[in-house]
């Protein structure tokens, strides 16, 4: 009996359940299962989140522990890596304060190895900008006579010295081409100049090389190896350079041939013929209306071959050992000047350059460079009369000028360079700012942020015979930056 009751109860229960289900909506098992799955997923993800957070907490705890260690290490590193007392600090500021001066990039002293664009383009394009802030003890009108270079900082306040757009590349298998377009701002006016644009042959026979176009004359060390202001070790050009070649250096359209001698050491001979006119040949024909030693210059066109400017140069270089290189050069330039109908100028110069750089060097540091260059000029100045009255103003005479500069640049510790230059020039004309006796001393210090940017602080003490109290002071803060691919520089 007992057993027969169970199916009955079971049946009733089933009936009840069915009735209940009918009364309160039957459950959607699919839905329940889905929600259960979702709950499980959620729990799992929560568990993961908690684990992740736990991990983060542990990492943070470790980092907190490590940060004390890092701070201690950083302080120790700053102390351990600081240079010996007396030397300039490698990292300015307190130890650890400038913790991430990562931009303190590599710098290359002197002829910096600027980069070419991976050979992926036909032409390298770069822009180099030189700007300076200046303060001078003399008013701007007098400073312009002292800072005669066209790219020198020459007024109180700011000067955009030079923005040089360089376009350089291989033309074809026979030529390479170079062009330098420079821009300056002079009293609110932008001056654009085609400074250089020339072809150079790549494969002439007999060790010859031809160059043609508008180019800096290869005269002296400054003219042949580093004519562009951003390659100079100073914020301004040497006094004698401005006197001989004017504000913008000696450059004109022309052609030059050079020959590499088959000697065991480097010996190269240069010969150039260029136009003698314009402000970029200031000791020669220059421009009509300009003056020289009081005389007014007349316009003079080319009548025969002797009215062109001819320049010769011999340059030699010797490796004294693996660390020392000595270069010597001698140059001469011959051409007409326009004080008279048949007057001529000769400029001659000698240069010496010595560089020491150890074989094992840190990005080019340390190094020591010494350059000395002496120039002389013999200028036939014609007699001139007052055109109205016929009264003689100047007699026929040969004017002699000479001068030299000597500079030492010492890359004592990466990325610093300390340099000093001494200038002397004399033409024996006490009141002519361009021919009087000048002595100038220019110490400076340069800091390279990287190969492509640098900051320079320079002081000039200037003794000039034409100044009433003889002495002028000037301080320049110069900044340079370079973008793009710029060809390597000469030694």
């Amino acid at each position: 009996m007992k057993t027969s009751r169970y199916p009955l109860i079971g049946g009733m229960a089933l009936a009840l359940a069915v009735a209940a289900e009918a009364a309160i909506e039957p459950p959607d098992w699919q839905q329940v299962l889905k929600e259960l799955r979702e709950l499980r997923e959620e729990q799992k993800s929560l568990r993961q989140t908690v684990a992740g957070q736990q991990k983060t907490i542990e990492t943070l705890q470790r980092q907190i522990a490590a940060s004390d260690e890092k701070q201690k290490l950083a302080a120790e590193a700053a102390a351990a890596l600081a240079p010996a007392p007396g030397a300039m600090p490698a990292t300015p500021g307190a130890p650890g304060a400038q913790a991430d001066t990562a931009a303190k990039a590599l710098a290359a002293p002197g002829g910096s190895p600027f980069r070419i664009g991976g050979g992926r383009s036909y032409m390298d394009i770069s822009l180099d900008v030189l700007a300076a802030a200046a303060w001078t003890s003399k008013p701007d009108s007098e400073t312009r006579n002292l800072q005669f270079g066209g790219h020198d900082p020459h007024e109180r306040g700011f000067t955009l010295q030079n923005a040089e757009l360089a376009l350089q590349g291989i033309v074809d298998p026979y030529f390479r081409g170079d062009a330098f377009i420079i821009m300056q701002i002079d009293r609110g006016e932008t001056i654009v100049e085609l400074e250089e644009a020339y072809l150079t042959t790549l494969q002439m026979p007999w060790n010859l090389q031809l160059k043609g176009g508008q180019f800096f004359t290869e005269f002296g060390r400054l003219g042949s190896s580093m004519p562009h202001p951003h390659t100079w070790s100073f914020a301004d050009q040497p006094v004698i350079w401005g006197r001989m070649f004017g504000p913008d250096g000696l450059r004109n359209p022309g052609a030059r041939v050079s020959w590499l001698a088959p000697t065991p050491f480097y010996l190269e001979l240069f010969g150039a013929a260029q136009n003698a006119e314009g402000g970029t040949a200031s000791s020669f024909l220059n421009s009509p209306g300009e003056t020289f030693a009081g005389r007014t210059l007349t316009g003079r066109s080319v009548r025969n071959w002797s009215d062109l400017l001819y320049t010769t140069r011999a340059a030699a270089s010797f490796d004294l050992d693996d660390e020392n290189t000595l270069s010597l050069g001698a140059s001469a330039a011959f051409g007409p000047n326009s004080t008279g109908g048949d007057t001529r100028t000769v400029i001659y110069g000698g240069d010496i350059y010595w560089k020491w750089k150890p074989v094992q060097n840190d990005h080019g540091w340390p190094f020591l460079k010494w350059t000395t260059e002496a120039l002389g000029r013999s200028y036939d100045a014609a007699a001139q009369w007052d055109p109205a009255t016929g009264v003689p103003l100047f007699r026929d005479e040969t004017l002699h000028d000479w001068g030299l500069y000597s500079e030492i640049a010492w890359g004592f510790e990466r990325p610093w360079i300390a340099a000093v230059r001494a200038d002397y020039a004399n033409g024996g004309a006490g009141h002519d700012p361009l021919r009087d006796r000048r002595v100038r001393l220019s110490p400076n210090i340069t800091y390279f942020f990287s190969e492509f940017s640098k900051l320079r602080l320079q002081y000039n003490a200037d003794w000039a015979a034409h100044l009433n109290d003889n002495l002028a002071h000037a301080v320049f803060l110069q900044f340079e930056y370079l973008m793009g691919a710029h060809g390597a520089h000469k030694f």
Partner: protein
Amino acid sequence: MNQCLTFLLAMLALGTGAVNTAAAGKLNVVATLEDLASIARFVGGDDVTVAGIAHGGQDAHFLDAKPSYLVKLNRADVLIENGAELEVGWLPVLVDGARNRRILPGAPGRVNAMAGIEMLEVPATLSRAEGDVHPQGNPHFTLDPANGKIIAASICNAFCACAPDRAATFRANLAAFDKRLDESLARWTAMMAPLKGLKIVTFHRNFSYFARRFGLQAAGTLEPKPGVPPSPGYLANLIVTMKTEGVKLILAEPYRDLKVAQFAAEKSGAKMLVAPAGVGGNDDSRDYFACFDWLLGQIVKTVVP
């Protein structure tokens, strides 16, 4: 004036004469790196004279464009450059001045060692904010001896093109070089097998190819970016990382700021090895094989006490 002219003509005659004898005799080879010069000596044998410019103890990025190099290039029949812009600061201006058609880009006598090399660390974008990066990739590939075979083949091709009469000799020399390199590489690999996975820190990325070849794991560089000197903060971070990662070895070339490497070694417990990155960097590394013999020997000696 006449004397001057005679002198000039005599020099000119001498010059052309010198060029002619060079062509008839041994090939006059200039290589920018001693690594390349050494490989050229193996391939060229007695038929070439080879002058190397930068040795393994020098930073080849920072050579001056000395006029004496220009003279060497003027007289060269073959110029072997590393390429990948390693010599960009000084070689192009020298080649332009050398007025030597035999070594102009594209001439049979111009070898760019980079040809055929699988380059590492080629940047996707170019920005100097990243330091002194090389657009064509890491240029220090001669430190993988397997690349030595590729370079040797390029050199052999140039030699054969410049002196076809001696091509058979060059090819035989190349085969001998390759064989010796294969044998050496097997030996070196076996020697380094126990150190597989060894974590190292280098100063610059000079050893990337080397590390890949010998199963070393580069855990960082002492300079934060190529050419950028480390700040104390960067160094402190690196040292902590070195400790957590278990870096055992610091490789630094002799021309680096060794104070930095010394400090990192002291604080992290890693060993420092001052290692020239190439042939001629010390007396033991006199050729391409000796260079690896020395370097690998020193690493094993330094890490395994």
